[in-house]
């Protein structure tokens, strides 16, 4: 139960820079998710916090205690390893009991806690087995159980649910989240599963190439992505991106995307003023494009585009249309099951209040930048 601060963490492995200047302030009792693609430095960041790696630059603070050079055991952290790291020569019971034994808990207390954790993770009947007699998902749950039996100051979890089946994963998500709320342990949770990140995190730190791209609440990350990377990484199907030239005449803003033109409402004027005549990247999520007849009544500012149906993904709960507008493909998500003939013409509306505009060079969101400036 402590707040964690990362100050300018850099970690290199030879020529690779695994973590490249991370600053992150994690509040006491917060559940923060590190989200990012494979190889972006999530595990390395976690290992630096745990004390398994010394950063090449920067400091790690627990509260106002500088722990950068403290060995792991003096940090009172718990960790679920990506590779589970459960000990092959100990039975499941002894694996889970180990941290408690080291901390010299009384025998009955150990037994009580091990049984409780096993119950929670549905591995009670496996306590008497050796790890090599378990499936991958069962081993992973043993690793989680081992991490939660002690009450650490900081709980570090590296993709703890990645090997579970869909049903169990959903259940475990809520169990872990409930547990975390109850014991109020500061939790740093690594995943590359965005649904997991969105549903579990109090805040999400999106990482790429060793850097934090954006930190914010799940809805912030989704609604106001800070740059093209975050916008593209969060949300399925991926956000549509296209280049467009900004034309400002009198009070009118037109985004010219060669295949079609979008007339933006005046609200965008302050941000786009200086981009007159320049090219920007425009982004819009598939769920913010509506075919005729599917626009929600709340959506006021629409801009219509026509295209031919190129491909249809019928998912049951959703229908994903791939529309060819001439030189590009717009992906459209419609909730519910609908039939569309391939090759047929469809008119869709872009929801202009949910449009994102990014600088072509820096890939930074213009809208986000302005909000930041206002704050």
């Amino acid at each position, binding site marked *: 139960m402590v707040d964690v601060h990362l100050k300018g963490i850099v970690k290199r492995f030879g020529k690779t820079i695994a973590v490249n200047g991370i600053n992150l302030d994690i509040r006491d009792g917060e559940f923060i998710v590190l989200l990012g693609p494979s190889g972006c430095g999530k595990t390395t960041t976690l290992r630096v916090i745990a004390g398994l790696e010394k950063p090449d630059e920067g400091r790690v603070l627990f509260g106002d205690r500088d722990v950068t050079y403290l060995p792991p055991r003096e940090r009172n*952290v718990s*960790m679920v390893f990506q590779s589970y790291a459960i000990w092959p020569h100990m039975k499941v019971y002894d694996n889970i009991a180990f941290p408690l034994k080291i901390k010299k808990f009384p025998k009955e207390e150990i037994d009580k806690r091990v049984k409780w954790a096993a119950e929670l993770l549905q591995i009670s009947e496996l306590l008497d087995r*050796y790890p090599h007699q378990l499936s991958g998902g069962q081993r992973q749950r043993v690793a989680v159980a081992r991490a939660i039996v002690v009450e650490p100051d900081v709980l570090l979890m590296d993709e703890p649910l990645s090997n579970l089946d869909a049903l169990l994963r959903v259940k475990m998500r809520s169990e872990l989240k409930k547990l975390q709320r109850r014991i109020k342990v500061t939790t740093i949770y690594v995943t590359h599963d965005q649904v997991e990140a969105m549903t579990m995190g109090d805040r999400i730190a999106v990482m790429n190439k060793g850097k934090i791209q954006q930190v914010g609440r799940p809805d912030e990350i989704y609604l106001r992505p800070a740059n093209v990377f975050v916008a593209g990484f969060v949300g399925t199907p991926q956000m549509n991106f296209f280049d467009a030239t900004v034309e400002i005449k009198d009070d009118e803003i037109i985004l010219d995307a060669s295949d079609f033109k979008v007339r933006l409402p005046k609200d965008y004027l302050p941000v786009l003023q200086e981009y007159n005549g320049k090219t920007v990247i425009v982004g819009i999520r598939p769920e913010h494009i509506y075919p005729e007849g599917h626009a929600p009544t709340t959506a006021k500012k629409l801009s219509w585009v026509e295209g031919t149906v190129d491909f249809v993904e019928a998912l049951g709960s959703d229908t994903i249309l791939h529309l060819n507008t001439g030189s590009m493909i717009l992906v459209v998500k419609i909730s519910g099951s609908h039939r569309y003939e391939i090759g047929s013409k469809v008119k869709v509306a872009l929801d202009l209040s949910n449009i994102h505009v990014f600088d072509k060079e820096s890939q930074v969101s213009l809208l986000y930048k302005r909000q930041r400036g206002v704050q």
Partner: protein
Amino acid sequence: MVESSIVRYYLRKLVIAALVIVVVVWVVTPFIISMLYAFSSKDDYYSPNIIIPIHYTIQHVKMLLDLGATQAIINSVIVAVITILLSFALGLPAGYAFAKFAFKGKDSLKLLIIGLRMFPILVIAVPLVTLYIRLGLNDTLLGVALAHTSMALPFVIIISSSIFAGVPKELEEAAMIFGLDRKGAFFRITMPLALPGLAAAAIFTFIMSWNEVFIASVLTLTHRTLPAFILTSAMAAPDFIKFAAGFIMILPAMIFVFIARKYLITMWGITLK
């Protein structure tokens, strides 16, 4: 298709079984022959009509034991045990360092260690004797054990480093997160997991020391190890005495290997990962 794959499967099994039989026969035959003749009565042994002896006696073995083989066995065991202790005490930390840490000159150091084994033992025998005389180590068991240690050490270092490298580093790290220091993690996690491999290394070291005859003969006079004793005493004796000597050589080694092997197998019941 299915038919032929079944045939292939059983053919393969057959071939493997045949090969195993050949190897076993190859290994066991001399062993059995020396057992038989070691206990064969003198008359049976020399009788041209008898191949497999009919009358057995423990006379030859007993005679050898009385003549000093008992002491030689004890000496050999002492030397072998000291060799294992010393080479492990020195070799395991080195092996661990090679396995777990990256440092400058690691590869060349490794090569150097293997390179030490290139020198034939003959070359160092005479300097060793002079050195030992000066140090007062000549004709002592410790002296032989030290020589054997130097022979076994490169092997112990290389083997133990690959055994330690086979224990995933996260296992030790997990122990360190949950409250142990590196030393504790080594003894509670890495060591138990490495034990089967180390047992194999111990067997090898034991047998190497047990069999080593040249250095043992050169360095000792009155405190002979078993092979040195047999070389000097039994080789001039009749053949059945030689067989008896061979039996005495084999038996303790067999006992040791059986004990270590049982341990090896029970440990490998829970292999890494």
